């Protein structure tokens, strides 16, 4: 048996591969959504699946998101494992009632009799120059809905591993794909994909001692860049990639913050009532006496997603992150 050396692959390729492997491994896995069949999806994530597995396994649906998700609920009730694609973040909103009132609640309302093993893939976030309604960061809505898992990869390997794990989960998973990372590349060997870990664990992407950057999805790369840039200012930043927003990995996060004593949460969506509020609050509750400074947040502004020509001002960038790190009351330490 020869192993192919790891070669650069895109996140999009890893996601496609994850779907393909999941479909090959389990005949109950069905992909459905708008344009997922013949076209392979507008981001080509489902490319080739209809050809390989047939239209009944990878199905172009009518254009109606509540109908797609609602049908997936029924399919899951009958023992299938549907994977739904929502074409863009804002186009998942029509399915919100199905998501909140059924997908999230069915296991609970039936006291465990009916679980819904379904995965809802949603490309999310900005930075690709998309016109309005194509760049929302909607994770706050899903995090605030008990009964859903919320997962988002930041690396090519995680895209594969987390999507496999999400499809394998017996609970509904909102799988958020950072669209601006679709074409990002990592060395990754598609023939030897990462082990399919259970969801729910954060990971330290870069160890550091001065402060922790808590982040996920599209902002992980930005934080790593900021951490590099911070070296010249004498800061050694740790970067934690949360990977799974629900369930939240308090253990890994608090271990890091207790070590560094300082933290900044970084994400694209607006700060107000966004994920960062929860993260800052729970870190503060759990690590208060180890904190040298309040947990700060670097996020998008609290505005509707801006037009593409202004989005660079909105998205958290290296400078804004470093400014926040600079406000972590370093003087108190001396």
């Amino acid at each position: 048996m020869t192993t192919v050396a790891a070669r650069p692959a895109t996140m999009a390729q890893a996601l496609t591969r994850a779907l393909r492997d999941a479909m090959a491994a389990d005949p109950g896995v069905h992909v459905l959504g708008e344009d997922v069949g013949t076209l392979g999806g507008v981001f080509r994530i489902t490319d080739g699946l209809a050809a390989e597995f047939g239209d009944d396994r990878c199905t172009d649906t009518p254009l109606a998101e509540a109908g797609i998700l609602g049908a997936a609920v029924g399919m899951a009730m009958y023992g299938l494992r549907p994977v739904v694609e929502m074409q863009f973040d804002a186009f998942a909103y029509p399915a919100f009632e199905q998501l909140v009132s059924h997908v999230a609640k069915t296991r609970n309302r039936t006291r465990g009799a009916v679980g819904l093993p379904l995965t809802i893939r949603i490309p999310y976030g900005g930075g690709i120059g998309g016109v309005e309604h194509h760049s929302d960061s909607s994770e706050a809505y899903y995090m605030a809905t008990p009964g859903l898992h919320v997962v988002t990869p930041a690396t090519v390997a995680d895209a594969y591993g987390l999507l496999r794990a999400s499809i394998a989960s017996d609970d509904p998973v909102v799988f958020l794909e950072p669209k601006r990372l679709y074409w990002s590349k990592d060395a990754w060997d598609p023939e030897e994909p990462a082990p399919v870990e259970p969801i729910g664990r954060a990971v330290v992407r870069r160890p550091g001692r001065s402060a922790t950057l808590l982040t996920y999805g599209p902002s992980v790369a930005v934080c790593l860049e900021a951490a590099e840039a911070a070296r010249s200012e004498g800061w050694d930043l740790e970067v934690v990639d949360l990977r799974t927003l629900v369930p939240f990995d308090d253990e890994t996060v608090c271990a890091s913050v207790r070590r560094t004593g300082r933290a900044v949460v970084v994400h694209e969506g607006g700060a107000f009532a966004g994920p960062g509020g929860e993260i800052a609050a729970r870190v503060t509750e759990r690590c208060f006496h180890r904190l040298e400074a309040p947990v700060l947040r670097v996020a998008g502004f609290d505005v509707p997603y801006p037009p593409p020509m202004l989005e660079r001002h909105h998205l958290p960038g290296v400078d804004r992150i470093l400014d926040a790190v600079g406000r972590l009351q370093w003087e108190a330490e001396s």
Partner: protein
Amino acid sequence: MTVMEQRGAYRPTPPPAWQPRTDPGPLLPDAEPYRVLGTGAADRTDPRLLRALYARLVRGRRYNAQATALTRQGRLAVYPSSTGQEACEIAAALALEERDWLFPSYRDTLAVVARGVDPVEALTLLRGDWHTGYDPYEHRVAPLSTPLATQLPHAVGLAHAARLKGDDVVALAMVGDGGTSEGDFHEALNFAAVWRAPVVFLVQNNGFAISVPLAKQTAAPSLAHKAVGYGMPGRLVDGNDALAVHEVLTGAVRRAREGGGPTLVEAVTYRVEAHTNADDATRYRGDAEVETWRRHDPVELLERELTRRGLLDEEGMRAAREDAEAMAADLRARMNEDAVLDPMDLFDHVYAEPTPQLREQRDLLRAELEAAAEAGPEGEER
């Protein structure tokens, strides 16, 4: 080619790829609701079916009365009665085979019970206990759906999945006239038709959505006419004629099972009682209207037919009534027992496995309850 040359050559070219896909004629419902009772067709009905329907309608009527009484005694939080609609409820359940699925709306407790679900378990939701009292897989009955019309796409998905798996299972989904206005109704019917899913949609048009009469709900010739817009047949039936509803639904189920695709059935009926025990129907409708419908009562219509054909006498009626009373007594007795709920259950079925956070919260509540128990009865108070 010059302009002048073109001139002579010009002929109308129809858009070449256009062709109508279906002949709409057969999809359209009749102008009048279909009826069997009181027509010659009723004579041909199997007496066993007539008797089975009758016994269940009488029971159903009694069940509605008993459940409403339980709300007055504080044993049920709320009850949306289907009195006057028993023919639809029972026929829906009887039209299905064992292996089929029922997707009820929140008013359809009777259909759920007629399908085999324990009469007490069917009321679990409405007594303030857990949201679904029965295991949906046991009798293939989905949870009663409170958010209107949301159950319809579920029925489509399940039926579609069954067909993909090669099972000849049909799903029957119930919805009210008001529910037809929701987007989910539209999306479900469209998916069903495009997928040719084995689903039957039963709209009980009982004239009202809480206080809103049908005329404020739709301007369509009938709700059954909506079918043509999806390319499925629409059928209009007298919803108080149990034989007619049964025949139409059985036909639609057979059609679905044989691969003919979905059907939309509108059963014209009437909500004789208020929306729920908490509603005051006098605020929005007069007695006269209710009275005219009481004279077209589904139980009485069936009773007359059986009587006419000599299949039912005073004795038989008494027997049916006694059977219903026994059911009611049992329901009453069992509903009078206090439900016992374990607060720890709050955390157990949010996910297949509780998250670390839910385990923490479970521990918190357990500690609180233990502290309260130690503090004695007053400790429980606030």
